[in-house]
């Protein structure tokens, strides 16, 4: 059996979710009622039998570390292999690497030691449910040097502007990598490559003073490499702005979309919180809403997502909103198009209304 080791490279994921990324990096932002962004890619790896994962992170990684522990929830708390969270802590004065090559260079030991034949490199912003063993099978079948994963989107949204796009020939071979606005083959920030090749590529990048692995080692050299394109056909959401976060969260209320992301045989795993089942009081009214455990609901909730441990008081009305962990919403409040970060308290009688295109975001621990 060929083995894959994973690298999650957060170096290029800037803290673009405004209030939600004041105190945490994007990968640690809560999503879908009981998860964090990073849970999706990490669960995909576990479900694909990947047992060695490195995480390259540079800033605001404390809440990410708290969440990931030693990888326990993903069965990655192992002595051999397992999850390695690798913030920068480099003290070699002779080190000339720059940009994300600093991570690749200083953590080359991980690549060398990993009991793996292939290395999979990903980000955390592309929410999906993918089997990387299938990607590997296609990679071997195509005899490619590098396989990149893309989604052919039905419609281009603003969040796709920042992604690389792929031009693909009829052999599923990548002929160009670019940022053309109208191209619907969106690169999902996932590539697979043989261990020996990535080691060579890293050394080559450093020797040439490069600072961005994907741009310099793959995009710039696409004509001399055989780059295969793997088409991912399941549910896909790219979250790199408040607007895309809000719109893609709402998509989860569609049962079909929901089923493509949450599969029995490839579950999304996350850190366990011991919340009781949610409680609906006799006068509650809930409709078209995702509810995590530990909530106590005495009001009216529709088209919304409630994270764990939320309290909704009597007579409160919540519409088209995302309410994160342990928010306490008092009686007779009215919330519409709102995102409340964790631990917010909304006092009796308050009304907060945002716009559909621009939800009203309340940062962590605010009391209103």
């Amino acid at each position: 059996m060929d083995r894959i080791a994973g690298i999650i490279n957060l170096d290029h994921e800037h803290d673009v979710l405004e209030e939600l990324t004041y105190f945490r990096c994007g990968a640690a932002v809560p999503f879908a009622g009981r998860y964090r962004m990073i849970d999706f890619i990490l669960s995909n790896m576990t479900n694909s039998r990947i047992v060695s994962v490195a995480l390259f992170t540079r800033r605001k990684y404390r809440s990410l570390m708290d969440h990931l522990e030693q990888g326990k929830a993903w069965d990655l708390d192992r002595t051999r292999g397992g999850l390695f969270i690798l913030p920068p802590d480099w003290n070699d004065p002779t080190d000339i690497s720059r940009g994300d090559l600093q991570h690749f260079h200083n953590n080359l030991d991980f690549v060398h030691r990993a009991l793996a034949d292939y290395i999979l490199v990903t980000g955390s912003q592309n929410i999906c449910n993918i089997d990387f063993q299938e990607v590997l099978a296609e990679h071997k079948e195509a005899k490619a040097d590098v396989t990149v994963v893309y989604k052919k989107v039905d419609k281009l949204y603003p969040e796709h502007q920042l992604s690389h796009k792929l031009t693909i020939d009829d052999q599923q071979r990548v002929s160009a990598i670019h940022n053309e606005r109208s191209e619907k083959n969106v690169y999902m920030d996932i590539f697979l490559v043989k261990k020996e090749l990535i080691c060579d590529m890293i050394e080559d990048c450093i020797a040439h003073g490069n600072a961005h692995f994907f741009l310099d080692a793959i995009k710039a050299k696409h004509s001399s490499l055989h780059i295969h394109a793997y088409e991912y056909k399941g549910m896909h959401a790219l979250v790199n702005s408040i607007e895309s976060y809000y719109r893609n969260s709402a998509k989860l209320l569609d049962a079909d979309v929901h089923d493509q992301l949450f599969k029995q045989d490839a579950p999304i795993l996350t850190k366990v919180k011991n919340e009781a089942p949610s409680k609906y009081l006799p006068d509650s009214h809930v409709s078209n809403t995702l509810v995590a455990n530990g909530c106590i609901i005495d009001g009216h909730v529709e088209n919304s997502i409630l994270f764990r441990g939320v309290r909704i008081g009597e007579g409160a009305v919540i519409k088209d909103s995302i309410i994160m962990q342990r928010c306490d919403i008092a009686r007779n409040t009215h919330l519409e198009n709102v995102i409340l970060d964790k631990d917010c308290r909304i006092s009796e009688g308050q009304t907060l209304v945002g716009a559909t295109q621009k939800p009203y975001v309340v940062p962590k621990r605010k009391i209103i």
Partner: protein
Amino acid sequence: MKNKECVAMLLAGGQGTRLKSLTRQIAKPAVYFGGKYRIIDFPLSNCTNSGIDTVGVLTQFEPLVLNDYIGIGSSWDLDREYGGVSVLPPYVQYEGGGWYSGTANAIYQNIKFLNQFEPEHVLILSGDHIYKMDYGAIFDYHKGSGADATISVIEVPWQEADRFGIMNTDGNGRITEFDEKPKEPKSNLASMGVYVFKWDVLKKYLIEDARNENSSHDFGKDIIPALLYDYKKLMAYTFEGYWKDVGTIESLWEANMDLLEKDPALNLNDYSWQILSKNPNQPPQYIAPGATVQNAQINEGCRIYGTVNRSVIFYGVHVKQGCYIKDSVIMPNVQMGKNVAIHRAIVTEGSVIEDGAVIGDPSPSAEITLVTHESCALAANYAANS
């Protein structure tokens, strides 16, 4: 490593025949409760929350479900390198050995297990009650009083006292007498099946009891009376709070309904005393447009399109359009067709219910209906033939 001051032994062996086919395949402590839990989550969580990190779980019949559920104990933070939780089925010893013939015999056969930790005290628990209890408090009381054994008691209504093991005490809480189901109770202090013993004292009595061919090897019937006979110091510790024996279908149903009170006596949302449980990794529950969910407790992984009223629903249940669930407990992964009506029932894990089925009797005086895999198959067979 130092010895363990206190080791807990949880008696999880019984078949619980009063729970009928709920316990056909699984040990009683593995029975589901409260939309998310199994009964054993309560004593295990109490141990963890009380700072006890070494627990033996004594099991006899069909330990596989319990073994699989407990795993290495990580759900209860009991995946310890030294101590932690160990499932202890009976095993062959070089000179004989065999099935557990009673609660005391189960502990007797595990003397070697206990000796490993050189405990000063042993906490004996039973696996069939729902309660939140700080064992640290009874333990401090036990040590403070210098007792040989301390028994946790709870005040029960006088008219029900004849259904329990009753402790008669002197003015200082010392137990003078033990009456098993007395016709004319002298006290209303019922034993909760929670004991703390000095290990050296208990060990001596267990060894003597094992030699006694006339003994039934039971804590309540043999060990406690023997200690009292020898004037050992037995103290009663009075527990206050919610405590429920869920040994029958009715009491199990009632305990579930108790949770739906606005301020339930058993608060599962108390972050200072969480009930820990194995997490089935389910997405959030989805309440569809048009669904009505009121007075209910629902777990993750459910999808509700119909009506749920005064009911408890475990994970992975899909309540489809036109379904009406009232006064019921629906256990994990029940598959239900459309337009099903269920009243006053407990539906067990994985049961399959056909479109339009009508289950249970809504009359408040009716018995609680128990629906199992087998009863579903029977009903389907009956429908096909009629």
